[in-house]
């Protein structure tokens, strides 16, 4: 068995090797000759593509296994063994990681291909692709890790890569600050993860710390300790997946190149939190309170982010808030114990969000890095492929049947209502309407109406083929991905739910046909309402609005950034300054300089003896010998 699962370890290895190769190749050649950027681009696509094929193999091998033993592991080597803790660098393939692998590698590959076009004018091409490969490799470690610790390696890896890539255009100070913000906010979340992991180890870690052992031993924990572990882990998830209160980094992360945004939002990074909660579903189902907290945080994040999204004027920020909002849905899904619905939304979201970001990237690319939607307009005629594919993405995001987002969002809302969480469902429907509104606000403003900047419009053209082909492929995905989990109502088999059943502790709601119909009807109504409002306001062209009152408040994101700055950052800086100026010189430096002074005093006292004259040393010698002889003679007597 061991040799046949070897390729599992190769999946994260390919992109990592790609990163190393590109980096070394660039370092070795950059001084001597100019390597055409296409070489790096193609080199970068090889790793993800290989991983994708191996992911396919994993998927088919899993499918061949019987339902109750649908997993296999590969232990690369023993990482360390200390006391009770024996840790392997192990990888686990089960239905959950198998599904994640498939679309992470697939979308990751497409984004790499797209980047060849998008980054074509960039100076540090090699650096970009090396980081991208590293990013994907880290995510694959995260997905495949067979223990929380290996998962944490990938977890930190994506955090690092996001930092590197967000501050990629490092000439601009704001971008660097955005990168710092992402990294620091993520660190806060990571602390939660580490504490949760430590607590989990303390509770049941001595019986094996890989997921399978943990799952088998979870019953040995008390309810309160499970709750603590769940909440600590969820703190980690809020950091990585941008939930309240740690969502602030994600909109700022738009500072990076657009393919990076697409990679962060669709395939890697932000979905990690949802994945982690689903991975630990065996703990979350034990304590209802933990799930409830997750669900409420999720749905409130969805609401707040949707409000912000309605008033943004940067095309990427609109999409960023839509991601935060959709992530909120996913957490609401996993919170109401509909894990497969949450993961299903991760799956469909990956397609349409990657599509929307890459589409937005194409628009930004042809407009020479213009991101303000109020300077666009009427691009429909100039960029038909981008328009139509983005329209599909927008319909999927807004939850229009039969596009992908509709089914997954509907599944979450239905699970919430059927499990008896009326208010979560209600907010969810409200957010659905808002989602439709802000998505189509963006589409109408960017693509419809009259061009607002005539000069930019005249220069606009369709993006090159290397960018549009991934768009088309993703559009097909956004169109059809939803059918994989078609609810029984439409004659579907809920393939993804059944597929995930061995991995996640789903609690299937027992709702009636009527309830399901009701949920779908309200969702469609919410979508139609949002679309209608957006069309009325922006369908025929609109001028940039001046925000007043609540809108102004929302445009400035409720001043949350300023609040955090005032409540956390500034006091923290003040404390730091106080420590460096008051505490450090007096408390830590004083003993050290004291010791130095002592030695200096003693030295000045003793240095009199060192006259430098040979004869004086001779006296010392004779004196010493005399004393020694005297002692010797005394002891002999």
């Amino acid at each position, binding site marked *: 068995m061991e040799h046949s699962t070897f390729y599992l370890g190769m999946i994260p290895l390919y992109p990592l090797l790609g990163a190393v190769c590109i980096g070394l190749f660039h370092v070795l050649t950059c001084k001597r000759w100019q390597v055409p950027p296409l070489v790096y681009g193609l080199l970068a696509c090889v790793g993800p593509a290989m991983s994708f094929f191996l992911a396919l193999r994993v998927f088919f091998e899993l499918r061949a296994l019987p339902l109750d033993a649908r997993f296999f592991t590969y232990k690369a080597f023993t990482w360390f063994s200390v006391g009770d803790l024996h840790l392997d660098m192990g990888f686990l393939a089960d239905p959950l990681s198998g599904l994640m692998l498939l679309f992470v590698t697939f979308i990751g590959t497409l984004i790499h291909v797209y980047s060849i076009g998008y980054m074509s004018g960039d100076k540090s091409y090699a650096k970009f692709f090396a980081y991208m490969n590293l990013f994907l490799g880290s995510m694959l470690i995260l997905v495949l890790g067979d223990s929380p610790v290996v998962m944490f390696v990938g977890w930190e890896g994506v955090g690092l890569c996001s930092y590197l890539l967000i501050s990629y255009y490092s000439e601009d100070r704001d971008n660097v600050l955005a990168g710092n913000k992402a990294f620091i906010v993520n660190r806060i979340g990571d602390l939660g993860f580490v504490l949760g992991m430590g607590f989990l180890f303390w509770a049941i870690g001595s019986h094996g710390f890989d997921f399978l052992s943990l799952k088998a031993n979870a019953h040995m924990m008390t309810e309160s300790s499970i709750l603590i572990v769940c909440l600590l882990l969820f703190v980690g998830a809020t950091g990585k997946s941008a939930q309240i209160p740690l969502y602030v980094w994600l909109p700022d992360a738009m500072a990076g190149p657009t393919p990076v945004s697409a990679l962060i939002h669709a395939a890697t990074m932000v979905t990690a939190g949802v994945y982690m909660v689903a991975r630990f579903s065996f703990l979350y189902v034990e304590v209802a309170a933990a799930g409830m907290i997750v669900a409420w945080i999720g749905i409130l994040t969805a609401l707040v982010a949707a409000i912000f999204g309605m008033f943004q004027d940067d095309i990427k920020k609109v999409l960023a808030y839509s991601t935060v909002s959709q992530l909120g849905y996913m957490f609401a899904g996993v919170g109401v114990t509909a894990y497969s619905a949450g993961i299903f939304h991760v799956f469909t979201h990956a397609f349409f969000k990657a599509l929307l970001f890459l589409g937005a990237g194409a628009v930004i690319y042809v407009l020479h890095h213009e991101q303000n939607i109020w300077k666009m307009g009427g691009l429909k005629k100039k960029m038909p492929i981008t328009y139509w594919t983005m329209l599909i993405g927008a319909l999927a995001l807004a939850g229009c049947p039969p596009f992908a987002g509709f089914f997954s969002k509907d599944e979450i809302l239905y699970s919430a209502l059927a499990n008896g969480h009326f208010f979560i469902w209600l907010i969810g429907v409200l957010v659905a309407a808002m989602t439709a509104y802000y998505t189509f606000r963006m589409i109408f403003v960017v693509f419809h109406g009259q061009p607002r900047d005539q000069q930019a419009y005249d220069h606009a053209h369709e993006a090159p083929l290397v960018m549009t082909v991934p768009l088309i492929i993703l559009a097909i995905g956004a169109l059809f991905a939803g059918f994989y989990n078609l609810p029984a109502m439409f004659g579907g088999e809920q393939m993804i739910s059944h597929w995930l059943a061995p991995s996640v502790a789903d609690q299937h709601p027992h709702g009636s046909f009527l309830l399901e119909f009701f949920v779908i009807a309200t969702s469609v109504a919410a979508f139609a309402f949002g679309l209608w409002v957006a069309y009325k306001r922006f369908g025929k062209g609109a001028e940039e609005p001046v925000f007043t009152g609540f809108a102004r408040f929302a445009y400035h994101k409720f001043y949350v950034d300023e609040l955090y700055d005032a409540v956390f950052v500034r006091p923290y800086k003040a404390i730091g300054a106080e420590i460096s100026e008051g505490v450090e010189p007096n408390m830590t430096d004083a003993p050290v300089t004291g010791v130095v002074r002592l030695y200096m005093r003693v030295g000045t006292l003793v240095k009199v003896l*060192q*006259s*430098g004259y*040979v*004869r004086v040393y001779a006296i010392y010698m004779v004196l010493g010998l005399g004393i020694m002889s005297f002692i010797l003679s005394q002891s002999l007597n």
Partner: protein
Amino acid sequence: MIHDYLVLSVILFCLGVVGVFARRNFFTVFMSVELMLNASNLAFIAFARLQQNMDGHVLALLIMAVAAAEAALALAVVILLHKQTGKLDTNVFSLLKG
């Protein structure tokens, strides 16, 4: 009888020590060192006489050889030092002063 020899040896040795301490001329210091070596030679010979064996003589001969070698080396050093400074005063060389 041995007592007299030893007293003489101690007197010679102390003279050598005082010479090393008190005099600043290279040659005087050097001669004082030789004096100390010969004081110890005298003590060795006296003890050899007392013990009626040759051990002391062997050591005395050895010390003479060492003294000869030392004389050759030390005179060379003195010449070099004199070349550097033009002086024969030991107080000139006090680089180790603290």
